């Protein structure tokens, strides 16, 4: 079974429902800066980050084109390929804007994905918790571990 992984727990239930209903093969929920909040179907974290960076870039650049045309942003984008289609949609939540990148195959369709994307957006808006107070995450003396990790990364 393909795994669904979330960074923020409140995104899990709406995302799982969306994947089951739309037949999406891959789904990414991310911020407009390309930070991933949740994903379904990817196997490597680094691939998730690349897909999120590219998805966020597409939405950002079409948003700029919309601004140049003096119109509101494009609601959603769909690219239909031979094997797969890509759907990109943006929506607002009380925690700021979010983007969804959805890859679907012949067992789904742009219409089906669009239909359940709207439900996904509504489900996420309803599930958003209040913003938590920022708190310290790392230990104060993290430098030694950082140095060791970087040395290992660069083979030093």
């Amino acid at each position, binding site marked *: 079974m393909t795994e669904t*992984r*979330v*960074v*923020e*727990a409140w995104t899990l239930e709406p995302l799982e429902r969306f994947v089951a209903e739309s037949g999406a093969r891959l789904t990414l929920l991310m*911020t*407009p*800066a*390309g*930070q*991933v*909040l949740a994903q379904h179907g990817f196997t*490597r*974290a*680094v*691939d998730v*980050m*690349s897909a999120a*960076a*590219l998805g966020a*870039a597409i939405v*950002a*650049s079409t948003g*700029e084109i919309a601004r140049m045309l003096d119109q509101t942003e494009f609601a959603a984008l769909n690219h239909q390929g031979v094997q797969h289609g890509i759907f990109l949609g943006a929506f607002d939540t009380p925690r700021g804007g979010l983007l969804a990148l959805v890859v679907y195959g012949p067992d789904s369709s742009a219409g089906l994905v669009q239909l359940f994307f709207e439900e996904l957006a509504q489900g996420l808006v309803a599930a958003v918790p209040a913003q938590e*107070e*920022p*708190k*310290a*995450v*790392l*230990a*104060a003396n*993290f*430098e030694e*571990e*950082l*140095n*060791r*990790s*970087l040395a*290992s*990364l*660069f*083979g*030093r």
Partner: protein
Amino acid sequence: MSLVNFTTREITCKIVYYGPGRSGKTTNLQYIYGRVPDKRRGRMVSLATQTDRTLFFDFLPLELGSISGFTTRFQLYTVPGQVYYNATRKLVLQGADGVVFVADSQARQLDENIESMQNLQANLIEQGVDARAVPFVLQYNKQDLPSDLILSPDELNEALNFWDVPSFSAAALEGTGVFETLKAASEQVLRKLSQAEPA
């Protein structure tokens, strides 16, 4: 801003390499990509023109390792340096946790360096970010060129390093200073996560 998953104990941070055209931002990422083991890096994505000038951005995801029990990942981005790509630079700069400014050490490029630094500050301000509060590192690249063509690190500090941030001499093509620059930027970005911030 950094994303922290307390359930799976993962941190993801975004570092943007900024600077004028042809200063060596992409070369920094290419060197890092070439030195890092396959399993610790993702694919390097380059949205470039046919002549290999960065059109939108370069992107390199890295698995740094475990810090304080958190699997830590970095997303390294470059921006296109040419003046007329400012809209694109603003998009890439969104949500940056740290910035590396790659300056071209050639004396004839000084004006371009200053203009790019001013552009960075303007774009941060436009995004409501206090430029002095962002983890920030300077790299003086191309220090391997003949000394009569380049400015010294001291001269470049005088011209560009208004806030006395860490600065590094580099020759990114051969990798000199690339590691040190990334290390300093990583440390500053993670230091923020080790300090409780006011709401």
